């Protein structure tokens, strides 16, 4: 091709990308519902459903009481009976309250019915530290990755938020879609034409030759900043955004590690049985062992105390130090 056609983009806030995806899909499919706390006229805690209540009304957009267990259960039941509910769980920490319906029922429904029933539902939740304390800050996506039958995605840009939400709402099984509080203030460019992003496709955000830095969600910004810092020392990082945690795109990561020879995994959650550990294990099954450092939260709860929170969560200087350490190996 002589000219590569770049898609026309529109700049928008993260929440607007989500709203647009949900609005388009709700218009297309009358079986999509929204359930959650303050999702109706209020438009969602992060305004991610702004304006939808006026369009789709109280039957399809339902404010729920503070009852995460029943809300996720009702969504799972409605999904099994032919609807496509999107459940909003304000903080990922509260997702634990709905684990029975999500993990014991929805994620296993297709299996236990031999394909007869499935639970096409999306649980949209918000992870990450932002001064809200030990039970409003966690990133527990790694717990979810180990559940057979569950899909888990975590966008780092408005474009991915839009594309992954579209795919989630068209999927045929339960999906946990994870936003990050600290990404909300950042706008980004989203294709004007309707597009979706398939699950299981990582994205190389920065090409590099010395090591592969793999992350997702808000930590992608930390990863980019760290790559920028070490670039001044002549260190070239390849930065990969996983986007989809289950399924994982190990092809892209392993291909990169084959080229760079080193792996650094970065996440905001715990490293024990974490996303990075899983990525590394599966990568090295392909490439053989390579030098690897994993970075995540320190093994402590995430306090609302500004000093302790910052100490717990990875930042760019810490990642840059790890990059230098890894390069020395």
């Amino acid at each position: 091709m002589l000219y590569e056609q770049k898609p026309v983009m529109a700049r928008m806030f993260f929440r607007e990308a989500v709203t647009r995806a949900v609005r388009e899909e709700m218009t297309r499919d009358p079986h999509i519902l929204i359930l959650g706390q303050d999702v109706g006229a209020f438009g969602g805690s992060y305004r991610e459903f702004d304006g939808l209540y006026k369009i789709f009304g109280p039957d399809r957009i339902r404010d729920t009481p503070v009852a995460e267990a029943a809300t996720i259960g009702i969504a799972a039941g409605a999904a099994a009976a032919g609807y496509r509910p999107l459940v909003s769980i304000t903080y990922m920490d509260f997702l634990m309250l709905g684990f029975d319906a999500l993990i014991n029922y929805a994620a296993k429904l297709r299996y236990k019915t031999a394909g007869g029933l499935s639970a096409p539902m999306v649980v949209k939740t918000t992870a990450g530290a932002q001064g809200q304390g030990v039970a409003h800050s966690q990133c527990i996506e790694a717990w979810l990755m180990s559940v057979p039958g569950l899909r888990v995605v975590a966008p780092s840009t408005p474009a991915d938020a839009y594309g992954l939400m579209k795919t989630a709402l068209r999927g045929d099984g339960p999906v946990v879609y994870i936003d990050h509080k600290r990404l909300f203030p950042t706008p980004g460019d989203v294709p004007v034409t309707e597009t979706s992003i398939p699950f299981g496709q990582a994205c190389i955000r920065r090409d590099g030759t010395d090591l592969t830095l793999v992350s997702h969600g808000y930590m992608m910004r930390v990863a980019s900043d760290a790559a920028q810092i070490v670039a001044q020392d002549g260190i070239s990082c390849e930065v990969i955004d996983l986007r989809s945690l289950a399924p994982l795109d190990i092809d892209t990561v392993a291909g990169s590690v084959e080229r760079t020879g080193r792996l650094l995994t970065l996440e905001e959650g715990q490293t024990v049985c974490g996303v990075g550990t899983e990525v590394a294990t599966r990568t090295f099954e392909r490439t053989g062992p390579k030098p690897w450092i994993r970075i995540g939260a320190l093994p402590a709860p995430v306090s609302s105390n500004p000093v302790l929170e910052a100490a717990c969560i990875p930042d760019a200087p810490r990642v840059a130090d790890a990059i230098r350490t890894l390069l020395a190996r």
Partner: protein
Amino acid sequence: MTHIDPVGALRAMLMIRTFEDTLARRKEHGFQLLSSGEEAVAVGLASALGAEDQLLTGGRSIGPALARGVAPERVMAELLGKSGGMNQGRAGRGHMSDPQAGFFGAHAVVGGNISIAAGVAMARQLDGDGGIVAILFGDGACGAGALHETLNMAAQWKLPILFVCNNNQLSVSTARDAALAVANLSDLGATFGMWARTIDGLDVQGVAAAARDAVRHIRDGLGPAFLECTSIRLRSHSTTARETRSRAELAELQTHCPIRRHAAALQADGIVDDVGLEQMRQDAAAEIAQAMAYAEASPYPTAQEVLRHVV
């Protein structure tokens, strides 16, 4: 409104009891949750549901599934892990389902299926097809938060759902009175403004009549209903759980057996005689023998199928 066919009800209860006895007698019967003593609840409730309605249950699901009309041979095969089961043997006890037969399924986490059932009811409400959903659970589930959350939301949204508590008065070994502070379990529904009633769950005709009233209330769009049926559990919690009651207690419980009671009532009314009753027992035995033969002949899935239908 048609009344429950009393002879049909006796046949159905005998079939369930025979099914469970036959299963328990099989040398390798696995881990099963039997419902002997609770047949009147299952059969009475099922008689009030229409073909388009759906029934969900907790783990103690054999009687309810059979009462709803799921083919006994498919239930038996499912419970034994055979491919001929309604879920190809993958669900097994506590998780089987057959939505085409109006049995949307079991979920063996106590209390766990209650919110799922409300979701199915919400789907029916949105479909506007007039179908309702019944959810059957034990007294053990009445301490679970999921029930209380769901009662609230079902009442708030006027969902077409019938909550049926089969109060067999035992949660494994813990007596209902030692576990639940509420006076009547139906008070849980009444608290949320529901049609609510506590009835004798050993009287199949009484259960049928009450369930009919509740279903009418729900179909009239008046919101959910809560029916507590007080029953007994004649066997231990599961086929692998030890019995905590004495022989004398169990013998006394047998005198309350809902099948005996209904048979005696029909005999007293001259509807059934000894010969007829014996014939019914033989019919049930023959039907279940066929079901067992079908299940025995059905193959297990191959190990290669383990990864099928996961995502």
